């Protein structure tokens, strides 16, 4: 140990350079391959911003209009690029404004590193100006957090932050740096972190479990796969596809699993969950083996647990041991990196053909088609539907677009009807359900995948939570396409009020400003559509535009999302109307 310490000290003495903590922060980020961050300056983070200014030829900073916008943008960037999203904020309100985004990233496993400024270490705990205990506040919603009070800690801690954020099951890390640590000097030498002694990023695959799982899959008559975002986070899309194509198992996804497999794939039987498809929800309670891959049995997926897949044996593939048996008792757990476990299982699973079983899915799809989908996609009523807008966007973008959705009815329509062809195309706030997510996330998504079309689908409610970020679009020229589906209600809450609260519409009616004028005030071309005959043309114009574009579509006011599993009901009691 001592020799090692001496060697490190010797290396630092020989190769290091003397710089300030603030400059070290930027040098660490560059060493991690990060040259883009979102943020908002303020007193306690000014030394770092001064270095951002000096390094502007190598390091790009996007000034958002609120720290929440910054962190959602970083989330959007991370979700489409698979890289770590980077955020800066100052102490106090700057830091607390990040909390919603941190919680969102934690529950949706999005890799982020947030650096907040903090008051000088001599002031800690004194209720100094803009002091807040962001370590205490962020602890329950971060994968890891740490407060740096000495400049010399910076390289090691930032290296550790990146390693922790992106390894294993990803998540947000917050590093709080006191102002004196930013001003202080250190002998800088950067070494990437490759392990943390108390943390096993990826569990070791137990091949016996793989064999057991394969045997159960081989013996199944009615196997059914539900996959989640783990397939995307594990970069296991190809392994997943090979696995289902060999075994011919009908496969459904969770909301966050969308786009890991192309929507049109013959084995893709839709989405499970509260507003998912009819067939996979109903047949969850008919399958004999349920194979969960990189998903966590969220209550919005399972409905009432007491009646969820009770007839089935359950196999759970996940990287996080804490997810196994958390909500649904599993018979076989394969705890490992899903890319590795799916590759391994290929040699043990037999080729199979589940034609008759697949027919059951097809039959129920037809039921949903007649009862729900046709009315949405080819409506005969006068008012426009959200489904036909999504369908119009599919046509115009050829399914190549990244769909960024906010939270509410429009989100469910986007998830249900978007036609995905490429992975990492569904950017949305799933676990936390953060209204206001989509606009800033779309800005980040565009920067994370500049070659791709990015369409934000937002409701009139969520849009007004973060529409200040139009200013960020004005300043950065991010060419995002913004679609506001305006039904003049907080539609999802109104739907519940209609169904479960005898239509008492408590505070869900929403009066909105002239959205077109608002967009135009930010120099964004804007169109409002209220008639069906104008919709296709407006979408065409929007997609053809090389710049940011705003499209408001006036939607039938009291349209509902169906199918629906009411809270507490079983997945197989999903309602079609």
């Amino acid at each position, binding site marked *: 140990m001592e020799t090692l310490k001496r060697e490190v000290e010797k290396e630092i003495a020989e190769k290091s350079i003397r710089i300030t903590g603030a400059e070290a922060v930027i040098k660490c980020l560059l060493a991690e391959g990060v040259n883009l961050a979102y943020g908002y300056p303020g007193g306690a983070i000014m030394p770092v911003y001064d270095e951002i200014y000096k390094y502007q030829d190598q390091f790009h900073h996007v000034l958002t209009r609120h720290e929440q916008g910054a962190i959602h943008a970083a989330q959007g960037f991370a979700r489409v690029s698979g890289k770590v999203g980077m955020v800066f904020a100052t102490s106090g309100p700057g830091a607390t404004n990040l909390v919603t985004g941190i919680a969102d990233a934690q529950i949706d496993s999005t890799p982020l590193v947030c650096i907040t400024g903090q008051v000088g270490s001599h002031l800690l705990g004194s209720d100094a100006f803009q002091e807040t205990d962001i370590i205490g506040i962020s*602890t329950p919603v971060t994968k*890891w957090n*740490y407060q740096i009070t000495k400049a010399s800690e910076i390289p090691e801690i930032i290296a550790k932050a990146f390693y922790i954020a992106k390894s294993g099951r990803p998540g947000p890390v917050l590093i709080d740096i006191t102002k004196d640590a930013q001003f202080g000097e250190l002998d800088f030498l950067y070494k990437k972190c490759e*392990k943390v*002694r*108390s943390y096993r990023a990826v569990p070791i695959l137990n091949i016996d479990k793989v064999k057991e799982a394969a045997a159960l899959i081989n013996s199944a008559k009615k196997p059914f796969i539900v996959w989640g975002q783990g397939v995307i986070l594990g970069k296991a899309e190809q392994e997943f596809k090979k696995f289902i194509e060999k075994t011919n198992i009908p496969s459904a996804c969770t909301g966050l699993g969308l786009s890991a497999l192309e929507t049109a794939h013959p084995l893709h039987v839709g989405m499970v969950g509260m507003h998912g498809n009819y067939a996979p929800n109903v047949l969850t309670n008919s399958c004999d083996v349920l194979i969960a891959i990189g998903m966590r049995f969220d209550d919005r997926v399972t409905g009432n647990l007491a009646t969820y897949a009770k007839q089935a044996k359950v196999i759970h593939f996940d990287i996080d041991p804490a997810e196994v048996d958390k909500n649904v008792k599993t018979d076989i757990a394969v705890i490992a990196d899903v890319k590795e476990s799916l590759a391994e299982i290929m040699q043990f699973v037999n080729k199979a053909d589940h034609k008759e079983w697949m027919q059951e899915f097809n039959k129920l799809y037809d039921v949903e088609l007649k009862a729900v989908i046709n009315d949405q996609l080819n409506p005969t009523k006068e008012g426009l539907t959200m489904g036909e807008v999504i369908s119009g966007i599919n046509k115009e973008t050829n399914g190549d677009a990244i769909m960024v959705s906010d939270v509410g009815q429009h989100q469910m329509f986007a998830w249900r009807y978007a036609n995905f062809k490429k992975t990492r195309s569904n950017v949305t706030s799933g676990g936390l359900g953060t209204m206001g997510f989509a606009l800033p996330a779309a800005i980040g998504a565009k920067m994370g995948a500049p070659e791709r079309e990015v369409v934000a689908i937002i409701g009139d409610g969520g849009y007004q939570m973060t529409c200040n970020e139009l200013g960020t679009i004005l300043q950065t020229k991010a060419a995002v396409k913004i679609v506001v589906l305006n039904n003049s209600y907080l539609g999802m809450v109104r739907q519940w009020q209609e169904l479960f609260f005898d239509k008492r519409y408590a505070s869900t009616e929403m009066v909105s400003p002239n959205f077109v004028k608002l967009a135009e005030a930010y120099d964004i071309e804007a169109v409002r559509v209220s008639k069906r005959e104008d919709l296709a043309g407006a979408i065409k114009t929007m997609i053809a535009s090389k710049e940011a574009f705003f499209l408001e579509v006036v939607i039938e006011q009291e349209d509902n999302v169906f199918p629906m599993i009411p809270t507490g009901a079983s997945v197989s009691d999903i309602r079609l109307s």
Partner: protein
Amino acid sequence: MEENKNFTISVYTENNIGILNRLSAIFLKRHINIESMTVSKSEIDRVHRFTFVVIVPETLIRKVVLQLEKQIEVIGAFYHTEDEIIYHETALFKISSEHLYDEQIQDKMKFRRAHIISINERWFVIEASGLKEDIDRMYDKLKPYGLLQFVRSGRIAITKPKMAISELLAEIN
């Protein structure tokens, strides 16, 4: 409803600032009351050990321990039933010296592992250690003398089954 049981949780962690907050947040999130808690160094250099006692159903304790284990700076987390551990608590009783020569109190002191650790003309302090029940009994006996102060430590526990922390550390590294 599954029955609530006493569980002792041992958590081996790095000795860093803020870990207590991170661990207690997991109990808070699940609305679990911590009956007792002790923190100390462990048998391994630079590794700290938390000992919690909680009263919950077994299916819940399993999930909680996995969540504790998941924290980056936690090396290992384990739960044990009462018969898997050897455990101990210590209590201090401060009593007015007027009772010092009371024969009855001396009788009550005959309880095993109780002795006077400090005396002056105004008060004396009895230290007692043992199981929670032993200390509860002692408390009931001494209460009539008017306790000037009473304090009891959290549980410390050694487990009968092995907790292979050194092996765990070696395996990760």
